[in-house]
Each structure stands twice: as C-alpha cells, then as structure tokens.
C-alpha cells in the first residue's frame, strides 16, 4: 500500500504522517508534481520543514532501452537512442554513432564532425535554457521559464530546419550526419545566437541577479569539491565545485580540440553556482558555435556505409564518453560481429546526480528547497531509468 500512495502526489495520507508526535513524517514529492524534473519521485522524511531522510524513486520512465537496442539493427537504434535524454538528446546520438565508428573503424568527414559539434552545442544551449526555466519555476519566478523556454524554441526551430525534427533529431549517423546545412542556415544560426546573447542581460536582470534567487539558491545543497569527486559528480555540477573537468577537453572527441573555449569553474558548489556555471557555459557554447560556423570546411557530410539491413559491425567493445549538458555521458558498446549490437550500456549523466548525490544533499535541506536542489543538479530522470 505504501508505495501506491506515492502515485497520487501525496494527496493521500502516508501512514507515517499520523505520527506527528515524534515530529517526523513522510512526504512524497512526485511523480506527479511540478517540483520534480520529469517523471520521478522523492520519498522524504521530514522533521518540521527539514528533510531528515530522502530516497529517490525512479523507473517511471523505464523502457528497457538497452534491451531494445539488442533487438534492433545498428542503424535502427539511431532512432531510439535519442529518447534516452529528452531535453538534451544529441549526445546520445553522437555517442552511439561514435561507438560504431570506433568499432568499425569508420572515418567521419571533417565537415560532419563540425556539424556534429554544432548540433551538440545547440542542444546544450537549448538544454541549459530549459534548465534556467525549470530552476526559476521552482522558486516561483514564472516569467523566466516563459522567456527562456520560448527563446529555446528558436533553437528548436533551427533544429527543425537542419534535422527535420524539433526535439528528436535522428541526425547523427555512423559515418557522419544525415543532411548538409540548408541554404542560408549558418546566418540564421548566427541570428539566433545574437538574439540569445542579447537576451542574456535581460535574464541577468530578471533572474540571475534577482535578490530572491540569491536569497534562496546561495548556500543550498553545498557539495564540497572533495565530496563531489568522491560521489562521482560530473559535468557542470563538478565544475561548479571548482574542478575543471570537461570531457570535451580532457577526452576530446570530434573536433573539440580544434576549438578554443574555457572551462568555467566556480567554487561555491551550491545551487546558485550550479546555476551560474550553466549561465557561463551558455556564453562558452555560443562562442563554440560561432567558431564552428567560422571554421567549418566544405566537403561531404557522410561517409557511405554499407546497406543498413546487412551491416555487420566488427566484433569488439568500445567505451565512448562525451560531455552532455548534464555531465559525463558514456556508451559502452559490445558487438559480436552481428547485425545488432550485442550489448549497449548507457551511462547517463544523471545516474550519479539524480540518485545518490540528490539523496545525500537533500538531507538537512528544507522542504522548500528540495525541488530547487533537484533542478540545480539538472538531474534528468529518463537518463536514470533508460
């Protein structure tokens, strides 16, 4: 019975709630709750307004991707991998394609590599804008999501133009990308970048420098650097803790090593600095995209691959990593030389942030900040569930 109550967003009473004498009671947040990112649940034990125990519950979005991939042809999986992380789907596609390329020793045309970087960074940009909106929503500043998410829509329009899909792009293929730029695309990307850059001061005024945001986010969910590394934090969350690790630099892929960008770090490692690190990354990302547009060479965008219905990837295994907007993404792919992958293991970026770290950081936090904390970690439930 107890776990069923989780379903109705806490609208029924938990058995524990009656025992108010010992001042501890249970509260479920989610899965139907705006305070969680996606379909995810938190089981909290509270004492007063303070959380004394926190458990996450995932699996509401479990589809068994890794199993499904084993039943599909290599090329068919391109259409499903992007579903693993909904707000930031492209690292999945790119990682999957790169794993096959590594196994089959396929060379990717340089133009395609640049386009991939462009798509990845646009996706990162979109994902960060989404997170800004989400984070602002948790503190009740609904103007910000209205702004940032509709600005994100401009990026989705670009995606639609380039890849034919707004959210799921199904665009990276083993050997390159599916289509070249449409005519005049680069200038439209620049327009959107200029637009978003122009919007950033507005965001600062409204949101990032908002007194109430500071009041609420500073000092929430502090994750010291040592602890962060011990707990396997990656990506922006680790950089917010002052450790400059970025897969794009340290384990460079595609053409990232030809592009100039910094790894911004902050040292406070609280909810606010995790938000601000993304704010800084937006600037970095815009810079990267501009460089891509400047440097992109002419040439083919796809290296011809065999008939997908009869394409056997040589046996072997490979571990590819990339930096998504949420952290380190990795695919471990095993091929037995058949037409289907033998095993694909997806290491979503949020598996550490969304489960272990969140559970630990929630303890001692007040109930008001629970959802803010989750959004600041930018944990993406479908990555955990797969």
């Amino acid at each position, binding site marked *: 019975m107890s776990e069923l109550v989780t379903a*109705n967003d806490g609208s029924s009473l938990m058995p524990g709630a009656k025992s108010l004498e010992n001042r501890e009671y249970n509260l479920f947040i989610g899965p*139907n709750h705006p305070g969680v990112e996606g379909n995810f649940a938190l089981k909290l034990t509270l004492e007063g307004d303070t959380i004394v125990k926190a458990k996450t519950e995932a699996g509401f979005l479990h589809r068994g991707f890794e199993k499904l991939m084993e039943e599909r042809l290599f090329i068919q999986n391109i259409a499903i991998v992007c579903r693993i992380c909904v707000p930031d789907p492209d690292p999945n596609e790119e990682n999957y394609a790169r794993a096959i390329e590594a196994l089959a020793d396929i060379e990717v045309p340089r133009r395609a590599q640049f386009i991939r970087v462009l798509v990845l960074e646009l996706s990162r940009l979109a994902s960060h804008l989404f997170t800004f909106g989400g984070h602002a929503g948790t503190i009740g500043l609904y103007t910000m999501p209205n702004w940032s*998410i509709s600005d994100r829509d401009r990026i989705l329009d670009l995606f639609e133009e380039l890849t034919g899909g707004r959210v799921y792009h199904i665009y990276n293929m083993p050997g390159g990308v599916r289509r070249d730029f449409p005519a005049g695309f680069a200038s439209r990307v620049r327009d959107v970048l200029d637009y978003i850059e122009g919007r950033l001061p507005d965001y600062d005024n409204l949101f990032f420098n908002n007194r109430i945001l500071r009041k609420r986010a500073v000092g929430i969910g502090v994750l010291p650097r040592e602890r962060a590394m011990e707990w396997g934090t990656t990506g922006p969350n680790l950089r917010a803790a002052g450790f400059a690790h970025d897969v794009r630099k340290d384990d460079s892929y595609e053409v990232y090593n030809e592009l100039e960008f910094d790894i911004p770090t902050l040292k406070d490692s609280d909810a606010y600095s995790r938000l601000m690190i993304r704010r800084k990354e937006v600037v970095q990302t815009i810079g990267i995209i501009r460089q891509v547009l400047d440097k992109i060479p002419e040439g083919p965008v796809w290296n011809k691959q065999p008939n997908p219905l009869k394409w056997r990837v040589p046996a072997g295994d490979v571990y590819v990593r990339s930096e998504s907007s949420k952290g380190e993404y990795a695919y471990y792919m095993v091929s037995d030389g058949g037409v289907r992958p033998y095993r694909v293991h997806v290491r979503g970026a949020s598996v550490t942030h969304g489960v272990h770290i969140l559970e630990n950081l929630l303890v001692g936090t007040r109930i008001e900040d629970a959802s803010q904390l989750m959004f600041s970690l930018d944990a993406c439930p479908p990555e955990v569930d797969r």
Partner: protein
Amino acid sequence: MEKTITQRSAWDKVLTKLQKRSLWMLHYCTGCGAVELPPTMTARFDMERFGIMPMVTPRQADILLITGYLSVKTLKRVVLIYEQMQSPKYVVGFGSCTINGGMYWNSYATIKSLDQYIPVEFYLAGCMPRPEAIIEGFTELIDRIGEGKANSWEDYYKNYEFYRKNQEHVFGTIDTRTDIPDDAKYFKIGEVEK
C-alpha cells in the same frame, strides 16, 4: 435515456459554452512528449489563451495528458490519478506510443494501447506532437466540449469492469480509494447496466 450530465437543458448548453473556456490540465510528465508541453505552456505558444492552465493536483484537473509511452509503473499512478480526477475529465493520448506501443512496441516495461486502461478522448499523431498540434488538439477538445461530444469519460463508468480487468492484468489489484460505482450512480450511468 442516454442524456448525459453535460447535455440536460438549454441552460446547460449555455453553461457548457462557458465551461469549455476553462480547462486545467494535470501537470504530469508521463513520457517524453511532455518536453513539448513547456513550449506549449509558455510564451511561444501560450495555451492560456484558451484558458488552459497546468494544475498540479488531480483534484482540480480536467485534462490528463498521456504524453507518450506509459511504463507499467507509471500506469499504476496514472490510473490512481485518473480516478482522483473529478468528472467530467478528458484524457488525450499523445503520439504513437499511446496508440499502439510506438517505438517501445517490444518493450517489456511499457503498455501498448492506452484505451485498454482508461478511456481516451482522442489521440494526437506524432512522435512527439509539435506544440502547434497540441494547441490544435486543445482547440479540438474545446470544440467537442462545447458541442457536448466529449463524453469519453462516461465510458469509464459504463465499462468499469473492462478497464479494471485490464489494469489488473498488468499490475495486479490496487486500492484506488475511489468509489467508481458511486460516481456512476451520481451520473446515472451505472444504472443503465443494471
């Protein structure tokens, strides 16, 4: 005989016309289609133009959007939520997954056709439907309510046994704490069968 609660008199029709201008949808991201809801809610597409707002609790919600696939684990919650919602209530299925399993047709974890478990008002094609299509769907729903055609929810009372059986087939018996037969009596629906 089959006169429904929403279509009793001329006065009712007038009220229905007003009522259709306010629809609250449940803020529940059941699947990946939910990622197109924030754009729909926010400035770019602004569904509040049609009086549609996200609501966080099922008690107040009129629309349940099933945004894509439902894992069995989520379905359990969805059924609970659906029963907690106050009639009249409308379920909209988003995308392929709700119709015939979509791309998770061979997954062990997701259900394949939504209308086996709860009555569905209509479906939107797409994987996932674009915000434009979602808005289009909402206006369709508004039109249907205005015309008194959006009565799929009555089906749950009429064929409660059927839905119950299918639900139990996938996740066993649960106590939803909602007295569906009592509701049916209120709407004078259950009596038809007796």
